[in-house]
């Protein structure tokens, strides 16, 4: 007797819906509850943010306060403070251009064609110097603007970029030192890394901003901004060093032995054999670390910098917009969300891409 196996008929649309959401009574209850929550939240949010919101500044704060929904006019009235802080009004286009430069630089470094040590260094070096020249001025006919006047989104981006720029090479150095075969070097480095990792970032920023001036000779103190960036870079590098080290551990020992057998010197081995493979292994975790450190730049508000969060506080904190705090925070959260979400999506994409190529 011959068995004929026939595929069951494809379920109709209604049947499919029933199977997916109403398979059992419990599933049905769960689906309906989730649907109710979603509809409620989306309706509330839309109603607040769009339907009964005020978008124009024509009515002033009074018309806004009377409205039931969100008061987006505070953003329309104060967006310059949020984005540029105390940067001089006529020069704010420079601050905007500098932000664009950083964004372009970040996007470029996400393209695989730029993933060689030299190209990535070139992109980041050029991007950061362009940012610095645009912000600081004093050359090319641009008026000089001191760091104390920097603020808003530009300051956030500056702290983030310089933290990565200093922290990344430092992380590689720390990882190599911790891997060293000389016991005292690896132990001391391990102590430094673990010590920094066990402290909260706020306390490190505080130490670098407030305490370090006591412990440094006058000529070494520098500006508070650069000290804080140094502290945040140190923190970043302690975490990143462990990620890089993990990546190095994933490189087969045969690779280094083969390089040694070929007579390559230490730096050749590290730069040509070990690091390229280690960085590839460490890529997803590295992106994750970038995401975390971008979010953590916001902590500098504690040691008194006028970055985007502080400028947001200032945007609603003075005078007639005092009631519009939710809108300002929502707007800043949205800005952070755009940056962080796209970075982390990119990280997830990379992870998928790599797991495919390994198969």
């Amino acid at each position, binding site marked *: 007797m011959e068995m004929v196996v026939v595929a069951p008929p494809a379920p109709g649309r209604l049947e499919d819906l029933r199977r997916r959401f109403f398979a059992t009574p419990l599933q049905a209850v769960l689906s309906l509850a989730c649907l109710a929550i979603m509809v409620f939240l989306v309706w509330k949010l839309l109603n607040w943010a769009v339907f009964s919101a005020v978008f124009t500044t024509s009515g002033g704060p009074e018309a806004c306060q009377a409205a039931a929904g969100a008061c987006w006019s505070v953003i329309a009235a104060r967006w310059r403070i949020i984005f540029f802080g105390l940067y001089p009004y006529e020069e704010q286009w420079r601050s905007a251009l500098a932000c664009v430069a950083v964004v372009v630089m970040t996007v470029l470094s996400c393209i695989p064609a730029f993933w060689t040590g030299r190209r990535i260094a070139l992109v980041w070096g050029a991007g950061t110097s362009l940012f610095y020249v645009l912000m600081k001025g004093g050359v090319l006919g641009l008026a000089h603007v001191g760091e104390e006047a920097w603020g808003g989104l530009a300051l956030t981006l500056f702290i983030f970029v310089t933290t990565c720029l200093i922290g990344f090479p430092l992380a590689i150095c720390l990882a190599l030192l911790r891997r060293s075969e000389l016991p*005292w070097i690896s132990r001391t480095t391990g102590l430094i890394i673990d010590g920094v990792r*066990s402290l909260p970032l706020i*306390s490190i920023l505080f130490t670098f901003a407030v*305490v370090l001036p006591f412990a440094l000779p006058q000529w070494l103190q520098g500006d508070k901004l650069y000290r804080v960036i140094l502290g945040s870079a140190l923190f970043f590098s302690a975490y990143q060093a462990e990620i890089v080290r993990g990546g190095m551990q994933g490189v087969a020992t045969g690779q280094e032995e083969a390089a040694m057998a070929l007579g390559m010197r230490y730096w050749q081995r590290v730069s040509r054999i070990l690091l390229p493979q280690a960085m590839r292994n460490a890529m997803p975790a590295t992106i994750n670390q970038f995401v975390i450190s971008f979010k953590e730049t*916001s*902590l500098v*508000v504690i040691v008194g910098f006028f970055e985007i969060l502080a400028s947001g506080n200032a945007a609603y904190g003075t005078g007639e917009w005092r009631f519009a705090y*939710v809108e300002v925070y929502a707007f800043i959260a949205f800005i952070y969300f755009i940056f962080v*979400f796209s970075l*982390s999506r990119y990280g997830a994409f990379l992870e998928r891409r790599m797991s495919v190529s390994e198969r």
Partner: protein
Amino acid sequence: MVSLLRNQKVRNALLQVLYVGSIAAMVLAGIVIARRNLADQGITSGFDFLFKSTGWDVNFSLLPATANDPYWWYFLIGIINTLFLGSVGLILATIVGTIVGLARTSSNDLARLLGRTYVDIFRNIPLILQVFFWYAIITHLPTPRSAHEAWGFLLTSRGLYIPFPNVGSAAFAAATLAVIAAIVLPAWLGRTSRLAQPIGQRRTIQFAAAAAALACAAIILAIGRMPDTPLLDFPALQGLNLRGGLRIPPEFATLAIAIAIYGGSYIAEIVRGGFKAVGTGQVEAALSLGLSPWRVFTLVRLPLALRAMLPILANQYVWLMKATTMGIAVGFTDFFMIVALTINHSGQTLEAIGILMAGFLAINLSLAAVFNRINKAIALKGNQLRG
């Protein structure tokens, strides 16, 4: 001399001495310069200041505190505040994270979508922004006179008021301990090595232990109750102010909410990862043995997922403890804020920073030690954890 440098061993030793020496020299130089700079300002170094009275107040303390108390007492208060806020945040974040994480692993598309939206939103906004946001919300709540009220809970700009048992603080602490024992004792007894009885009897003993501990808690509360008062004290308006109940200050509530929501989004991902790590073969095997979905969940998926989660969860908890330093943003006197205030008021910069480092090192190390114990205790012996 040159031939000595050619010797690999000598070179290695020299290199190490140079490296360690230069780092030690930098640290020492920093300390020496700092001591001199501080001495110029009339601040003598040393830990004598620990026994001087502070002269400033803390706004939140579980221990009695006045401005006459010495610095060491304030540091203790700070550490206890940090641990208390950390534990509350940790428990709340775990609850939020478990619910959201389970939603994300659910077979229901709508629940998954909800969970994913939650994680995407709250993970991608910096914690300190969320802290500022909740603080603004809470401090803009109505005054006590027109408070939001629900089931005896009151929401006001001066904090959240909740009903509270009418007992002294010592009795309350004892009752809390008893409740904790009711949770821990059955789990401890559940270890096969402790009780040799078959599983049914073991259950009975576990339930009995939990019931006994809960009964203890009830008795302590009954005895410790203030005379002639109802068991639960509800907050109520008296004149312009609220009387009764327990007041949770806005600062504490803000931080607990923010840590629970932000930490919860991270823990949700850990929970999801843990459940993803459970091999489908094991779940299918359990289903084909005829176990109901609930038993598959409690007997197979949950225990295996817990084992996969725990090491990552431990890291997350250490991070959560460090996140309590956000307290300084809203003025909650956690350990770090006490240190910062000490530096401001007494000028004993180096000593205070040293205490800060030692304190966080101790907190981190003890948390890590606890989790290592738990991890070792629940780890599968042998090679059973295969997909």
